[in-house]
């Protein structure tokens, strides 16, 4: 099996479906000839032609609108929003249209679109190239939200997204594109080469939504994470020596509540980690659900370790980023109750 970086795995998912399914169309800013600012679509236009893989105007609203129209026609469009921070001009088309089309027509029309977008910090992108807006969209009935943490999952989940008949937001942790990253920004960068989750089949496979992955089994405390934070949580568990069970949610909507509840019932403690701002982030929903479903099993309050409730500041991204130190301290706090 070839070792792939996450960006290669994402590229491969699109390549496989462009090859298999003539209804797949891929477009977005700079995705055509150039292959995307992060190279996610590199080579795809050359291979599949410019009527199927092409550049789009700088108009996120128009891109999503066009995708919805293509979906109504019978296509399976996959669009790229260059940075998740730039998804907001498409909010109306996503929330009012993509999310509701099936419902408002009782299934007469639907919206089989995938919206890919790099999210998260760690590349000195400042407040407009670092955001994690997933919590805005997980509030919206009708949307699915998926966030992979490694190449293998990225490809399998992206294929599921593209084959899904409902609109899927596929947020890609940009800091993981070229290597796993545990939040130790001051250590040498590592690559995916040799990482077990970078063994990626060349062909078609799916990872279904709503099935979390237990990234690390443990008995002390359940840590709920996704994307980059899975790696941070693993590092924190190792560094603190706390036997944390780290759950990689993979899809936030639909959510694998069963796996979460079973784990918390086992450990009696829970912590949520995400990079997004805290207030009303997805961690709030996780905390609310866990206390609803595991109230009598909980021995300590559920902690949230998150980005602060500020924009992502350029010069202080490592103070902002919830790295292994902060996660580790929270683990110790949760265990100390």
């Amino acid at each position, binding site marked *: 099996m070839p070792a792939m970086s996450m960006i290669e795995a994402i590229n491969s998912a699109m390549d496989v479906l462009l090859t298999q399914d003539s209804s797949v169309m891929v477009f977005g800013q700079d995705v055509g000839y150039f292959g995307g600012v992060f190279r996610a679509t590199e080579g795809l236009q050359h291979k599949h032609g410019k009527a199927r893989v092409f550049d789009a105007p700088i108009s996120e609203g128009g891109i999503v609108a066009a995708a919805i*129209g293509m979906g*109504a*026609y019978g296509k399976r469009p996959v669009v790229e929003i260059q940075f998740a921070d730039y998804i907001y001009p498409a909010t109306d088309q996503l929330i*009012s249209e993509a999310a509701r089309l099936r419902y*408002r027509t*009782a299934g007469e029309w639907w919206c089989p679109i995938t919206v890919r977008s790099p999210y998260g910090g760690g590349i000195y992108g400042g407040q407009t190239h670092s955001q994690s807006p997933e919590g805005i969209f997980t509030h919206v009935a009708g949307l699915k939200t998926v966030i992979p943490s490694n190449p293998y999952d990225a490809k399998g989940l992206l294929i599921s997204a593209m084959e899904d008949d409902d609109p899927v937001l596929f947020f890609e942790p940009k800091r993981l594109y070229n290597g796993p990253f545990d939040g130790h920004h001051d250590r040498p960068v590592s690559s995916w080469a040799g990482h077990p989750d970078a063994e990626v089949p060349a062909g078609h496979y799916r990872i279904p939504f709503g099935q979390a992955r237990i990234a690390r089994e443990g008995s002390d405390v359940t840590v709920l994470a996704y994307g980059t934070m899975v790696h941070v949580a693993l590092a924190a568990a190792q560094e603190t020596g706390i036997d944390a069970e780290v759950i990689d949610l993979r899809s936030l909507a*639909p959510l694998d509540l069963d796996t979460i509840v079973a784990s918390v019932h086992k450990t009696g403690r829970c912590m949520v980690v995400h990079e997004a701002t805290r207030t009303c982030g997805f961690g709030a929903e996780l905390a609310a659900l866990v206390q609803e479903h595991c109230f009598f099993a909980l021995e300590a309050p559920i902690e949230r370790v998150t980005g602060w409730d500020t924009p992502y500041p350029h010069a202080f991204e490592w103070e902002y980023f919830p790295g292994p130190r902060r996660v580790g301290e929270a683990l110790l706090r949760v265990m100390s109750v």
Partner: protein
Amino acid sequence: MNQAPGLHVPEPHLRPGDRPDFSDLAIPPAGIVPRPAIDSAPHDMRELAYALIRVLDDDGIAHGEWHPHLSPDRLIAGLRAMMLTRAYDSRMVRVQRQGKTSFYMKSTGEEAVAVAAAHALDRADMCFPTYRQQGLLIARDWPLVDMMNQVYSNSHDRLKGRQMPVFYSSREAGFFSISGNLGTQYSQAVGWAMAAASDSDPRIAAAWIGDGATAEGDFHYALTFASVYQAPVILNVVNNQWAISSYTGIAGSEQATFAARGLGFGIPALRVDGNDFLAVHAVTSWAAERARAGLGPTLIELFTYRAEGHSTSDDPSRYRPVAEAGEWPLGDPIARLKSHLIGLQAWSDERHTALEQALADEVRAAGKEAESFGTLQDSGGIPPETMFDDVYRDMPAHLVDQRRQAGL
């Protein structure tokens, strides 16, 4: 140095209490605007964006190059669909007043906009309308009962009571689901057309938007994408001169026509008398031919007048002279086509009255049938547990759970 003289806020000339007066409206004679070949260079057609394409004159006589020379049968079919639309509208407002549903929106005075377009398009062409193009469904012979079921949210409503009245959807009739969010369909239509083009599908898309809603971003996205990818789409702007209470000046009409918006994108743009069935038919056919020939999009501004309130929630007497509608110089589309047909000796007052009666009966019968399936107030016909369906194709666990919590 001059001082800026305060903020300019456009204001209609007339307000309640004023005498209706359209004397400052320059209406060019019918028949004078040339009809270019469909493959003329866009820059040679710019003046059409400032013109007003009219075929029928005030006496109902057809003139000029845009005269579509339709057979009397086709004209009568058009007349019938417009009259049926009006009869349908007037019944539905009545039942709304009776409390049988929550809301309704008429298209009175604007029937030609939808009906003539429907007759000029192929049945398989895809429409992305607003809430005011019910005439498309009617012209495509979509069953009134089905439309009424939607208005009533009754047990036969295919949309299962999910949408407000008049937010129809019919895949079979090529009528895209109406959205409550203004403008969104316009840019979606272009995506549909791009997909059709990429399949070399001969079908084209047509979209409608109100003058007021052109201010939304989606209008801009639609023009941008249509121009860049030369999508086979007809972009209609229905300039009925009013949004809700705000007149078309607040949408930008003081400084330019809406058709002119196409020029900035090199999209050929036509401005047409929207109350002239023949003219609307002709421009739509021209635009459809262009799209099908791979010549790209056309923008059409349909100049008309919203003769009644915005919706049943609106009272236009609060913001404009009540009698204005009756004075609209471009007249009524039904009356104008009728007089044209009578001039052709293909129609008569008697046949007209008889048809009016027959259509009223048809609407009444349809209404009875629809009401037999329930109305909004007494519905109960739709199983309430269906409200949890169709959020996704397959119901996720949390919705199964919530349905249970709802006791449904």
